[in-house]
Structure formats: structure tokens, C-alpha cells
């Protein structure tokens, strides 16, 4: 078996929000300094349960691998612009990324 590959511990920020916000959330992530992101279509239910339009595609899930500082910047921007009026969930965990230095 080969030597284990070196990995870098990074923050993974996950945002689940209304699909109408997609373009804006992506812009927010980029502005906060993220180098990339992965986007998944999803749906869900929460305490609020209101959607702008059922046929705009329910929810979107964005995942981005970033440094701790960028993670904070993303969450702060989210809190400022979206948490009051929009159905947005955001959380952070840590993952070990191969070639992780590419993403910071």
C-alpha cells in the first residue's frame, strides 16, 4: 500500500436556500473569497416552509471548501443579507482535502 496522501484540513461551508437565491448566493460566496463551489438541487421542509415559487426548483445546496477566514466571511455576509427574510440554512464542518492548498 502506498503512503497516505497528504491532505489539508479545510472548512466546508454548506448553504441550503431557496432556489431563487442561487445566483446571489454564488456571488456572495465568490465575493467572500471562495475559489470554487459545488451546487446540488434539493428540496426540503423547515419551520417556515414558504417557497417563492414551487416551479423555480425548490432549494439549492451549495458546498464550498474554504479557509476558516473565508468561512467566517461567508457566514457573516449570509447573516447580514439573507437570514431575516429568506429560508436559508448554513453550517460548517471540517474535511481533509487532497491538494487542499488549491482552495485557499
Amino acid at each position, binding site marked *: 500500500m502506498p503512503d497516505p496522501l497528504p491532505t489539508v484540513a479545510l472548512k466546508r461551508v454548506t448553504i441550503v436556500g*431557496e432556489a*431563487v*437565491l442561487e445566483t*446571489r448566493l454564488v456571488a456572495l460566496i465568490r465575493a467572500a473569497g471562495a475559489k470554487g463551489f459545488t451546487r446540488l*438541487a434539493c428540496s426540503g421542509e423547515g419551520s417556515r416552509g*414558504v*417557497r*417563492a*415559487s*414551487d*416551479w*423555480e*426548483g*425548490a432549494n439549492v445546496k451549495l458546498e464550498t471548501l474554504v479557509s476558516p477566514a473565508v468561512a467566517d466571511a461567508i457566514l457573516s455576509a449570509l447573516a447580514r443579507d439573507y437570514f*431575516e*427574510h*429568506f429560508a436559508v440554512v448554513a453550517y460548517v464542518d471540517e474535511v481533509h482535502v487532497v491538494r487542499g492548498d488549491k482552495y485557499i
Partner: protein
Amino acid sequence: MDALELVRLNLLSPMVLGFALGIVAALVKSDVKLPEALHSGLSAYLLLAIGLKGGIELGKAPLGELSGPLIATLAVGLTSPLWCFATLRGLGKLGVADAAAIAAHYGSVSVVTFTACGTFLDAAGVAYEGFMSALVAFLEVPAIIVAIFLARRTTAGTAHWGETLREVVFGKSNLLLLGGVAIGALSGPAAEQVKPFFVDPFRGALTLFLIDMGVLAARRLGDLRATGGFLVAFALLMPLVNGAIGALVGDLAGLSLGGTTVFATMVASASYIAAPVAVRIALPEANPALYLTSSLALTFPFNLTVGIPVYHAIARWLHA
């Protein structure tokens, strides 16, 4: 054809029956909802097809004939959100954002209701101006802009006007509708080539779409409790007021009996495709449960079943 026969004709059309099937399916919790991708594709198809049909006729119509209806459309589009807003604020005591959001929906137009009206008239054998669907695009947009402006006037506006405008004008539904009009008007006789796709199967595709709309409308019914009595009354009476005004204006603008019916239906209908998206972004503090439930779960079925024959009756009375 007498009035009752017309109502029967409308209620037992495949489209209205399809809508009813969707409601029944949702009530018995049967999952007949189309996949997201198909709903969205079908919606794009319908918008394009409606535009295309309008565009083909537009290409044939003398420009002079158009000016009256076009002015009427813009006039109604710019003013109807005002009286809706006033009613919602004055009688309904709703907050500014909610009132403006609902006014945007009722000032704008429901493309599917519009189409159902055309199908109704075809079945009843009543002719209408072919360019009407080109007018839909001009009624869809202004009301949304006016209503958002009404709210922003009073609330602390972080809204970027340019962006809002861009989003409404270049929104998916408007662009496909206008794009269809352009393709139809520019391609002239060559448009015949695409009729077996965009024209012949249109009503069947609409029937399938309406099954899905029925499911969505039924799902909203649960929110009726949150809506409150006033809004239920508004959602069922405002269309009649707007329809009567629309019939009057359409008649004055020189539209035929059929064209007047279509115009009245357009004015009476409430948007649930373009408006919700624009309003969600521009007026996030408005409660979607209010504007979606009233337009989709109440006004839409009301117009589909009762409204259209009523507006036709009004138009006939005006033309008599």
C-alpha cells in the same frame, strides 16, 4: 350557445378536467406531480408556443389595428396595481410590503388562464384577435414594476432598481414569450414548419401542465388558514372587478367580442410565474403564503372555472 352551455363547455374541457384531476390526486396524497425538470420544460414550451402563435398573427396584422389594444394594455398594466394596492391597504389593512406584493400579482397576468380562455373561445366558436398573446408580455411586466415601486417608495430601499427591472424584463417567462413572438413574426410563412410541434399538440400539453398546476394549487390550500377571510374575498371578487374593467377597456380599444373576452380575462387573472420570483427578491419581507395562496389556490381555479364564462358574458353584453 346559451350561458349554461358555455359554462358546461368550459368545465368539461380536458384542460379544466385535468386541473381537477391534479387537485383530486393531491387530496388523496397520490404522487402524480411531474418531475421538476418536466414542469419547467413544459412551462417553457407553453410560453414559447403562445408567443409564437401571437407572433405569427402579429406579422399579419396591420400596425394601425394594434395601437389601440397596445395602449389599453399598458394603461391597465400601469394602473391596476394601484387600485389593487389601495384596496388591500384600505379595506384589508395589510402591511405595505404584503399589499404591494399581492398587487404585483393581480396587476400582472396568468399566461395559463389567458390560454385557457383562448381554448374556451375556440370551442365556443368565437373568433379573437390573433395578436392577443403578444399583448400578454406587455401586461405582464409593468404591473410588477409599479407594485414594487409602490412598496419601495415607503420602505427603506436597499433595492437595486436596475437589477429589479432587468430581472422582470429579462425574466425567463417574459423572454420566452417575447422570443416566441419575435420568432413567429420574423419567420413568416416558414413558421408553418414548426406548427406540428408548437400549435397542434398545444392543448394536450396544456392539459398535462394543468394536472400539475392542480397538484400545486391543492398543496397551497393548506395555507388558506394563514390567509384570512379578507384575502379569500379579495381573491374571488377582485378578478370580477378587474374583469369588468378589462372588458370595458378592451371594448373601448376596439377589440372584437372574442378579443374583449380575452382582454378581460388577462386583466382579471393573477400571475403566479413571473410575479412570485420578482417579488420574492425585491420584496423579501412580504409573506409568500399570502400572495401565492391567493393567486394560485384561489384566483386561478376561480377564473378557470367560473371567471372565463362570466367575462365572456360581460363582453357579450357590452357588444350587444
